[in-house]
């Protein structure tokens, strides 16, 4: 059990540290690399929760494809250092921080106080030992959720066309004007 909790705390420290890096780093490219490392930490949490397929997809799709997209767009823009990375206005920012604090403390309070979750915690931990979740996941996707899966395929096609057509307005990224 000790190894489990050490792994969890190490992963959550990594995730929170790099997420704060995304928030605080004024250089967008460094923020993007922090985000990649946070995604890798989330993939680690997925592996820790014995859903290896999702961890792999997380690594391939997020830490691979999506972040490559982000970094490539940043490279196109050639942003060095931003003039004003953070929003101005002292009162507004205090309000935003307060709102965030209220959200997180409400969630944590509810989680700690609710007895149902405690019950769920106590009779868990035996988990799906040896059971391959990937196979069950594939069965579910291709039987119960097959319609949603197909719709997602259409959505992705539309998004590919839409992204190209939006960024092609007025001559692509290399237009003069």
């Amino acid at each position, binding site marked *: *059990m*000790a190894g489990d*909790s050490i792994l*969890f705390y190490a992963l959550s420290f990594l*995730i*929170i540290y790099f997420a704060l890096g*995304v*928030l605080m780093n004024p250089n*967008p490219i460094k923020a*993007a690399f922090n*985000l990649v490392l*946070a*995604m890798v930490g*989330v993939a680690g*949490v997925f592996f820790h*929760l014995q*859903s290896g397929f*999702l961890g792999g*997809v*997380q690594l391939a799709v*997020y830490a691979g494809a*999506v972040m490559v997209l*982000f970094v490539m767009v940043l490279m*196109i*823009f050639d942003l060095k250092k*931003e003039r*004003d990375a*953070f*929003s101005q206005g002292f009162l507004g*920012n205090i309000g935003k*921080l307060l709102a*965030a*604090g209220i959200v997180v403390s409400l*969630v*944590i309070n509810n989680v*700690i*106080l609710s007895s149902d*979750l405690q019950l*769920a*915690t*106590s009779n*868990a*931990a035996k*988990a*799906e030992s040896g059971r391959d*979740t990937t196979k*069950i996941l594939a069965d*579910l996707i291709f039987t*119960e*959720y097959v319609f*949603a899966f197909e719709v*997602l395929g259409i*959505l*992705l096609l539309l*998004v590919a066309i839409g*992204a190209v057509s*939006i*960024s092609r307005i*007025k001559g692509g990224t290399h*237009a003069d004007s």
Partner: protein
Amino acid sequence: MLTVDFVNIGLNHYLILSAIVFVIGMLTVLLRRNLIVMLMGIELMLNAVNITFVAFSHYNQLVNGQVMVFFVMTIAAAEAGVGLAICVSIFKRFKEVNISLFENLRG
């Protein structure tokens, strides 16, 4: 009773981690002014929700939650694609992706 078990990791710990990551993503969207960094904040929020889904699915021994995570990931990739395309078209118009310049965003 406000006691937290710090040794035995359970569902609660994952939910709290997810809440913290969600709020950091929310603050990124609220406080930063670069459009691309704001999109990164949205990705952080989606990841926090994914942690919640996987934690619930693990502790309830149901795989349906993981199917939802699969869908959320696809939607997130689509959203990043369209968002970055919009960023490119905005950058072409203003030579900048700072939202303080977008008071007159039309056409």
